């Protein structure tokens, strides 16, 4: 295979995928673009095979778990109080709340056996997500999943139960489908409605609004316009935000404490602002829940949305300041195909602008961790045993999922916990300060690698012709294999894409 083909292949794997695994540069060198296009055509691309609880099931389970914890605490407090004041007067206790979650008194179950239930949900979901990225041949579709998940982000800091299921339910099914459908799935997902405070938003003239003291919450409407569709300063007004928020009143969830349907989406007519609304100059007659769907459908094909998405995709995959002609191509394709995301992805990899040999993008920590684990033998994170005490036939490598999450958080990009609804930043400026911290992670990963990995072979597998002579020399002259491997994943060629 020509060096040129291998160079393009290495570029393709780093820029559009999760980085090479040993052999993959050579494997796709005859047709790197074709390999990326083929990744989009795989059956069930974007889906996870792992079976995990739905967001409603997770929400109910976490609710029950918390209620039980609360009851246990109350019982313990009560016991302490009774012991303390045995001779004193009987303390009155608040039984109404305890009744919500009846927990029979009994022997205390052992505490601290492994991660608690909410953390288990996160770890299982994270495990499936990492496995998909690490096991992928190229990982282009998984990269798209990560992109859209960040575009429509929610945070586990606000609701831990649904965050993994949300990605599987609202993002993955549509990642090669239509943007309009992903938008509908995302905005009516209970996790999003909770995250952006819509579940208790009510119209001033709704039944609940008249009877109660609370009113409109604009958060969801504003972020849909500003972040999810049109983009900031794209011409909408405060009046548009308010009207849209009125449209969305009533989009809510069934309280997770409700045993059968808790956590499901529900349209609550009592919360909904009655009457027609005008958003971006267009009147939307009051049709209940479908009023919001109609607005979303129009937002999905708004020209500002096309450009906003096109810019973000180009910025994510190609350059912090992508070529305007690439943005044009993506926006046009989006328009031509009515937001067919597979067609947009095809345009992304067939546009010449996407193949600039200047590799200026800095991989964010999460992508760098995955790229590192892929190159160094596909060691995937494994569920941590209840105890970290063990005997091993040495040579067995373990990289617990909890550790992966901790490392990613330490590098400033905690999984599913972005600090704000605009998600993690996508530019060099946001991540470059943290690069020195990655060196210690590289050092640790290098230390865990199995015997006999040759750094120069791995350099060829991971970078191929992209590796500069200086880089090659730095690796060859390292003091030890460990040092060489740590340096390898810290080279500019490996950090950038």
């Amino acid at each position, binding site marked *: 295979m020509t060096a040129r083909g291998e160079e393009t292949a290495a570029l393709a794997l780093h820029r559009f995928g999760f980085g090479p695994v040993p052999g993959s540069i050579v494997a796709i060198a005859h047709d790197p673009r074709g390999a990326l296009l083929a990744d989009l055509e795989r059956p069930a691309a974007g889906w996870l095979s792992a079976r995990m609880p739905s967001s409603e099931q997770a929400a109910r389970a976490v609710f029950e778990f918390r209620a039980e914890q609360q009851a246990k605490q109350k019982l313990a407090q009560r016991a302490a109080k009774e012991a303390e004041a045995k001779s004193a007067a009987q303390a009155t206790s608040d039984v109404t709340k305890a009744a919500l979650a009846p927990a029979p008194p009994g022997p205390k179950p052992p505490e601290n056996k492994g991660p608690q239930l909410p953390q288990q949900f996160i770890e299982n979901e994270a495990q499936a997500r990492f496995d998909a990225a690490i096991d992928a041949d190229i990982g282009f579709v998984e990269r798209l999943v990560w992109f859209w998940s960040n575009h429509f982000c929610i945070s586990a800091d606000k609701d831990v139960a649904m965050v993994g299921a949300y990605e599987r339910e609202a993002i993955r099914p549509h990642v090669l489908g239509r943007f309009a459908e992903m938008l509908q799935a995302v905005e009516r997902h209970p996790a999003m409605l909770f995250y952006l405070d819509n579940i208790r938003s009510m119209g001033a003239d709704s039944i609940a609004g008249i009877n109660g003291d609370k009113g409109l919450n604009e958060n969801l409407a504003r972020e849909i316009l500003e972040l999810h569709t049109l983009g900031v300063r794209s011409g909408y007004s405060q009046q548009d935000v308010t009207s849209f928020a009125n449209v969305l009143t009533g989009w809510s969830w069934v309280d997770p404490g409700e045993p059968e349907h808790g956590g499901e989406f529900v349209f609550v007519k009592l919360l909904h602002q009655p009457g027609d609304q005008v958003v971006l100059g267009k009147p939307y007659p009051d049709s209940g829940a479908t009023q919001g769907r109609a607005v979303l459908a129009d937002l999905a094909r708004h020209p500002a949305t096309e450009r906003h998405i096109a810019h973000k995709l180009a910025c994510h995959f190609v350059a912090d300041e992508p070529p305007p002609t690439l943005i044009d191509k993506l926006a046009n394709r989006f328009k031509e195909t009515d937001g067919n995301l597979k067609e947009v992805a095809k345009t992304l990899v067939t546009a010449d602008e996407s193949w600039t040999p200047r590799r200026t993008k800095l991989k964010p920590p999460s992508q760098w961790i995955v790229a590192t684990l892929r190159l160094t033998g596909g060691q995937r994170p494994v569920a941590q045993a209840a105890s970290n005490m063990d005997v091993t036939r040495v040579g067995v490598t373990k990289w617990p999922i909890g550790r992966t999450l901790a490392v990613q958080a330490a590098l400033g990009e905690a999984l599913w916990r972005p600090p704000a609804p605009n998600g993690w930043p996508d530019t060099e400026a946001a991540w470059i*300060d943290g690069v020195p911290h990655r060196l210690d992670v590289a050092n640790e990963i290098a230390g865990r690698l199995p*015997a006999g990995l040759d750094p120069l072979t791995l350099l060829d597998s991971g970078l191929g012709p992209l590796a500069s002579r200086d880089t090659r020399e730095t690796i060859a002259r390292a003091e030890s294999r460990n040092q060489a491997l740590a340096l390898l994943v810290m080279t500019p060629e490996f950090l950038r894409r």
Partner: protein
Amino acid sequence: MRFFHASSRRDVLLASGTLFAWAHLPKLAHAEGRDPRFLTIILRGALDGLAAVAPVGDPNWVSLRGDNALLLDGKTPALKLDSFFALNPAMPNLHHMFQASEAIVVHACATPYRERSHFDGQDLLESGLPNPAMSDSGWLNRALTSLTPGGRVDPRGSKAFAVGPVTPLVVRGPAPVLSWSPQKVMPASEDTVKRLLDLYRQADVKLASAMEDNERLMAIQHSGEMAQKPGGPAQVRGYFAEAAGMAAKFLAQPDGPRVGALALDGWDTHNNEGIANGRLSQLLGALDAALGAVKTGMGPAWRETVVVLVTEFGRTAHINGTDGTDHGTATVALLAGGALKGGRVIADWPGLRTADLYENRDLKPTTDLRAVLKGLLKDHLRADERVLAENVFPGSKGVRPLAELVS
């Protein structure tokens, strides 16, 4: 936009493993009423043997190393071992042990490897094979396989130690080995940072500047305790001492393992070697403190202990153009422990004239390191000599075990 990152590299605390140990008693030695402990420390990066133990009695010593020659009456006087050799002044603990007949220096010593690649050299040092070849087991593990286990020393069996991620090749292999990880970890060394920074300066100014800013930030953060900076001397010292001290603590327990190994990196001193005051001096000081920690940690078991420190090869006899030394051949093996017939430097001294040097540049090897290791395994752990020659160090029949190392 700036986002939160850990405030210094030190805050990214990561577990890393150091000690690997065998959980059995060597039965034969035990039958003799002995309870030997054996700790192998691999020094990765190639230790400059002439800087660790200087041949101050050699007439060509000063002309060879000039200002970098350690002397008994130098600015920082070397510690006298015998009429010919003196120890680096950074190693007072080892010196005390030597004086108490608890340490042996083997000089002009090397593995059979005669090339100068770290990777191959380390493989050969740890695999025990005569040629560089991929191996998935090390000589120490194969030696353990050959010993008849006198029963598990730890009746609780498998729950004795945590899994350690870093596994030196020397202990890999069929014999099950326990591993332990310290909570504290060695961040990437200053040397690794420097190598990376050199590359960034050539290839990527933005990454270089991020790295430089971070180093500056840490220097300010740790000013007053400058040496505490991640990967800096004090931290290296702390890490070496913790790793070695913990190893000793385990080996000392009545129901603890008897054989262990750990690896300490950082000996590749191409630039500004700092033999008497700089980097190597600090590393040797850290190593010396670690030996002190082993002796303390072993307690009464010290008299049944042998610690052996080995490195993949030595360094050039001459100082190079950047006040360092390049990859060489023969070096020292350092032995410490109460079980030794110590107080001796063992050397068939090859001399330092250019014609005496290996390929006119390196200290010439006159003692095969395998002879030292075989002698220790045979006399201390009671490994079988034939097994040593065939399985542990294959093809080493002609390399006789060095006798009389242990008492």
